[in-house]
């Protein structure tokens, strides 16, 4: 239930710089998700907050307290590990109560809290079992139960769902969200799955190579990514990136993707991109913003034609792959409206949802 403040946090292992200066302000009861590719320093950051990893530089505050040199047991946080880290020799009940017993909490109080957590998590019947006798999903719940009974200032999760099968993962994801709504607490949640990040987070922190690329609400991250990395990382299927050139189109500007395809920019966009005239840029657009030809709903929608290479039906939509100047571009079309591979198909593209990236800085301009 506390704020967590990271100030210029750094961590260096012998040679590797795992975390290279992170600044983050996490609010009361906020659900913050650290997301990023493997090796970007998410776990390291989380473990520094937990106190399991020494801090090379910078400061961490929980509430008002500087906790750089406070041992984990005095930080009042609880952590759920990727492979649960349940004590194999203890029953579920003992696993959950271990922290409370160490803290000499009264017996009746321990019982009450364990029962309360077991109710929330629906594991009342499992209390006498040992971890070995539980399924993956049940272990996951017990691990969360161990955190809940502690009633800590903050919960830390390190990829808690990555050991579950796809279906259970979706189920537990919803469950975690529900639990957070019931047990109001600050949560720092690490994952490399951007869908998990989008669905769970109040705020997403995208990390890459030990630094924060961007912080924002899921919607902001989706609509207004600030870097090529974030644009490509958030959203599934991933955004298309096509090398392009900004060209003059009468009074306005256009984006030339290939000899055949040049897309007009709106007056407002033309003004914004004026400085990039005749420059090589990268044009970014999500598959869902290229559809089969449709009635236009705003004046910034354009039609263009292209040869269909491959179709991937997904049920509700069909992914259409085409080739623009050697770059694979994906569109998302209604299954009934797609043409066969090899044929030319007409598409509608929504220019309001495009992003222009400067390849020199990889920033969205």
């Amino acid at each position, binding site marked *: 239930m506390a704020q967590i403040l990271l100030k210029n946090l750094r961590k260096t292992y012998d040679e590797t710089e795992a975390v290279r200066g992170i600044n983050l302000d996490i609010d009361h009861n906020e659900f913050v998700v650290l997301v990023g590719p493997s090796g970007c320093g998410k776990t390291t950051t989380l*473990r520094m907050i*937990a*106190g*399991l990893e020494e801090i090379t530089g910078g400061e961490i505050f929980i509430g008002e307290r500087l906790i750089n040199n406070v*041992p*984990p*047991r005095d930080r009042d*946080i*609880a*952590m759920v*590990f990727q*492979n649960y*880290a*349940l*004590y*194999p*020799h203890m029953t579920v009940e003992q696993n959950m109560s*271990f*922290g409370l017993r*160490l*803290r000499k909490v009264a017996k009746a109080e321990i019982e009450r809290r364990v029962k309360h957590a077991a109710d929330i998590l629906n594991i009342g019947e499992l209390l006498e079992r*040992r971890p*070995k006798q539980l399924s993956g999903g049940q272990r996951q719940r017990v691990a969360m139960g*161990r955190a809940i009974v*502690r009633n800590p200032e903050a919960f830390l999760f390190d990829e808690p769902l990555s050991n579950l099968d796809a279906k259970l993962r979706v189920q537990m994801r919803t469950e975690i969200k529900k639990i957070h709504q019931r047990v109001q607490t600050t949560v720092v949640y690490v994952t490399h799955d951007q869908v998990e990040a989008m669905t769970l987070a109040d705020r997403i922190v995208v990390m890459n190579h030990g630094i924060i690329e961007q912080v924002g609400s899921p919607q902001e991250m989706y609509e207004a990514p600030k870097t090529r990395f974030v644009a490509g990382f958030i959203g599934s299927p991933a955004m298309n990136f096509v090398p392009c050139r900004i060209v003059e189109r009468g009074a306005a500007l256009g984006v030339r993707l290939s000899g055949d395809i040049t897309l007009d920019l709106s007056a407002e966009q033309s003004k914004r991109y004026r400085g990039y005239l005749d420059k090589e840029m990268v044009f970014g657009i999500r598959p869902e913003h290229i559809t089969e030809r449709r009635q236009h709903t705003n004046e910034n929608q354009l039609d263009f034609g292209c040869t269909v290479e491959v179709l991937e039906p997904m049920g509700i939509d069909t992914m259409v792959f085409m080739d623009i100047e050697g770059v694979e571009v994906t569109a998302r079309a209604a299954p009934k409206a797609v043409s066969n591979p090899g044929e030319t198909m007409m598409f509608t593209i929504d220019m309001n949802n495009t992003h222009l990236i400067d390849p020199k800085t990889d920033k969205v301009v």
Partner: protein
Amino acid sequence: MQTQQTAPEPSLRERLVTALENQRVLGYVLMAPALLLILIFIAYPFVLGVWMSLTDKIVGTSGTFIGLGNYDKLFASDIFLTAAWNTVFFTTIATIFKAVLGMWLAVLLNRKFRFANITRATVLLPFIVPTVLSTLAWLWMFDATFSVFNWTLRWLWQMEIGIFGLVLKENWGFFRGPLWLGDPSLAMASVILVNVWRGLPFFAISFLAGLQTIPPDLYDAADIDGASGWKKFWHVTLPLIKPVAIVVIVFSIVVTFADFQLVYILTRGGPNNETHLLATLAYQLGMGSGNIGQGAAVALFMLPILAFVIIFQLWYLRREGVR
């Protein structure tokens, strides 16, 4: 298929091949060599030993059956009772020391530090050196007059530093160190010391292997749950290493209980039988005095005790496996 046609008589080779394809037959065939070796080298000497313990065989005679006569005699003899008690005492104390120190050493070695691997290898040294050699070295170190122990003590005495010097002055007089192997109360301690020194690496390395199977996550979890170093050891390390520890301890009890080389080289059971163990007594009676029947009886006396220990271990392992 032409069923009417009688198949040609199968050749010997073919019949053999068919037989071997039967799993039951093949199983026995594969087991036979091992079984044969066990019969020749273990079962036969064992049965012979049991038989001899029931005879009054003396070297050179064939001996006659005297039932439990040897055992009767043993229980009436002081030296046997002393040796039995010594063996129990020796085994208990040595095992306790080895287990506690071994665990301590393993925990230390399990930490990350420079040269960890070399240090771990070095710890194994006492285990690798042949017991006879290392024990001879200890024999030399224990020597009352010329050895390094007493030389050091004497040196301390001459320096007259601290309480140590005073104790030396009062009890052992000027210039004389203790008779490590000659003094009745020190001899047993010395023998135990050498046994602990020799057995420690086995404990430490086995425990270390056990420690390394404990997932580091559990210690992280315990850290966050609020456990201090000692609590982590008590609530996480110890319970998780228990299965390994039981096996190691039981194994060590069996080996220590039947220890022979150490005592034989250091004291030969002396002084005044203070360090006589069942194994050395059996040897002394059987080989030294040629009273083979009696020697066999002493040796066999260890059997039920060790069997009980091993059965306990098997029972425990099976129970752990079920859990």
